């Protein structure tokens, strides 16, 4: 959601140029070894960008980013609500107008010229029932389609809804005009005609509702585009199929998919690899003692870089193996601790009924004995800031209540799940910015690229159109399935 409400296109270009400045690629020359020579702690040249994001040691520290985010949240919630309420009140007014118009058409003649009206015959009264039920159906249909909790606040107005609202408004106004001029002015006494007029209005409203369903719901169901979403920090990629949508609605669908499918963004994993890289680079230094023969020094630099790369790879593989061994050891420890605990719990159940505890108390009783092992494991896998002690205890109580095995309890800590699974603190990106060259209300095209930026990372989205498929048919007569057995035998004599 964009901060300001102005709709100039150049604004998106500005944020793009902003973006091109903030992407820093780490410098590749071997003189990076100088940072180690300086005797600092392990840092690379991007330390200003990344290491302030995650501290990971205590749960209550707020980084600079958090503070900025909180203030921005406060600012934005005010502006957002205004706009939403405005739209909602407009919609309610329109709805009431539309609903009461047919009733008004029917009631007004009785109020204004009751003595002139012809009595309503049976056909006319039948039409009353028809109006009543059609209005009821219209009410239910509008409730089903429009009265749903809002999923999101989009940067620009939802074009189809606006169009439909305008259409309905024009329609109702034209009916009122006709009614006012031809019926009220002339005080028409043909009540059946008036009732039929009201019925035609309700029919037309039902048709407009049908149009609304087709435009808002059905049109985007058939998949037309294949979108590829890549997270900029760790390259995690997924592919989805979308129908014909505008860019902002496509972005909304993509963000919802992101919350459900992508494993949670763990910045600790990224900074870990960088620090490891810097550590190994420190081993190789290239000094140019003579100061002459540039080609010579270039050859030396190339050789040093190659050696660094191969030693890099070896060290990476060693470290990865080492870590996976450590991981297995820790998982084993955890499972042991947990099985011991489970047995204790069953024993307790067999004990006297005076010792009965509810799940929360049971979890609290069990928790300390496995807390250490679990914490060690989380720290090794760099997930410690994803799970607070409170959430672990809650999960433990949940597993106990539902008779889950230790393996089931540990499952949620072994692999990173989708973002939605974690506590609300980790929905760090409630504010998404859509950065696109094309207007966000224009529809998706083949090759459109846009960015969804949130505070920690951005999602790069590319679109490809599903091609037009030309199929032809070939008829096979069922009688044409005939077979010959062709042997190839060899006999020894």
């Amino acid at each position, binding site marked *: 959601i964009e901060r300001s409400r102005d709709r100039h296109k150049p604004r998106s270009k500005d944020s793009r140029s902003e973006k091109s400045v903030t992407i820093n690629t780490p410098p590749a020359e071997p003189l990076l070894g100088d940072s180690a020579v300086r005797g600092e702690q392990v840092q690379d040249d991007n330390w200003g960008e990344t290491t302030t994001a995650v501290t990971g040691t205590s749960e209550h520290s707020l980084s600079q980013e958090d503070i900025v985010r909180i203030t921005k949240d406060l600012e934005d919630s005010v502006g957002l609500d205004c706009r939403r309420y405005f739209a909602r009140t407009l919609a309610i007014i329109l709805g009431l107008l539309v609903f009461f118009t047919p009733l008004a058409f029917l009631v007004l003649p009785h109020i204004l010229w009751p003595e002139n009206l012809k009595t309503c015959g049976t056909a006319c009264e039948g039409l009353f029932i028809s109006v009543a039920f059609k209005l009821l159906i219209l009410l239910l249909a509008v409730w089903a389609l429009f009265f749903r909790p809002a999923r999101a606040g989009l940067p620009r107005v939802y074009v189809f809804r606006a169009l439909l609202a305008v259409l309905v408004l024009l329609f109702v106004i034209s009916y009122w005009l006709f009614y006012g001029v031809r019926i009220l002015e002339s005080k028409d006494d043909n009540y059946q005609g008036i009732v039929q007029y009201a019925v035609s209005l309700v029919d037309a409203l039902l048709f407009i509702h049908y149009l609304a369903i087709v435009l808002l719901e059905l049109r985007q169901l058939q998949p037309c585009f294949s979108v590829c979403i890549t997270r900029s920090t760790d390259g995690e990629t997924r592919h989805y199929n979308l129908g014909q949508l505008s860019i902002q609605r496509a972005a909304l669908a993509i963000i919802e998919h992101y919350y459900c499918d992508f494993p949670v963004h763990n910045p600790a994993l990224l900074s870990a690899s960088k620090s490891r890289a810097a550590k190994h680079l420190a081993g190789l230094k290239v000094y140019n003692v003579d100061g002459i023969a540039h080609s010579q020094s270039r050859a030396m630099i190339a050789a040093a870089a190659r050696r660094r790369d191969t030693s890099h790879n070896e060290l990476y593989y060693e470290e990865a193996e080492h870590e996976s061994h450590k991981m297995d050891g820790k998982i084993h420890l955890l499972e042991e601790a947990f099985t011991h605990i489970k047995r204790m719990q069953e024993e307790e159940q067999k004990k006297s009924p005076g010792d009965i505890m509810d799940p929360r108390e049971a979890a609290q009783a069990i928790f300390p004995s496995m807390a250490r092992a679990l914490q060690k494991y989380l720290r090794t896998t760099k997930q410690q800031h994803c799970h607070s002690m409170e959430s672990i205890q809650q999960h433990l109580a949940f597993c106990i209540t539902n008779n889950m095995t230790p393996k089931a309890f540990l499952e949620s800590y072994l692999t990173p799940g989708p973002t939605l699974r974690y506590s609300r603190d980790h929905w760090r990106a409630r504010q998404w910015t859509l950065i696109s060259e094309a207007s966000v209300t224009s529809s998706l095209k083949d090759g459109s690229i846009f960015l969804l930026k949130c505070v920690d990372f951005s999602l790069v989205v590319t679109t490809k159109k599903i091609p037009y498929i030309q199929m032809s048919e070939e008829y096979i007569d069922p009688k044409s399935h005939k077979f010959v057995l*062709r042997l*190839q035998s060899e006999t020894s004599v």
Partner: protein
Amino acid sequence: MSFVPGQPVTAVVQRIEIQKLRQEENLILGFSIGGGIDQDPGQNPFSEDKSDKGIYVTRISSGGPAELAGLRIGDKIMQVNGWDMTMVTHDDARKKLTKKKEDVVRLLVTRKSLEEAIQMMSR
């Protein structure tokens, strides 16, 4: 070696006489045959014309009677003891070769090298 329907088949043949070897209860010749009018001629690796449904020698056991008599792998058998082998089923061919009452089989075989040799001699 291919034939034209309705026309007599002509080929340069070599006479080979094989003495059957007694091995326990069986009389063996020491080679394997493939082909036949009920078989798939396209899978025959030895034939030049892939529609040739004749009987071909597919394997020769080393040191066996067939090898000693001069039979070579890839030979096409045209006659066995006077019986025609160019238009027989695989099983018929086997039966003609493995008659228990006969100790010796006289084959007429043809191979490409024979044709070439004759052609060179006639030039």
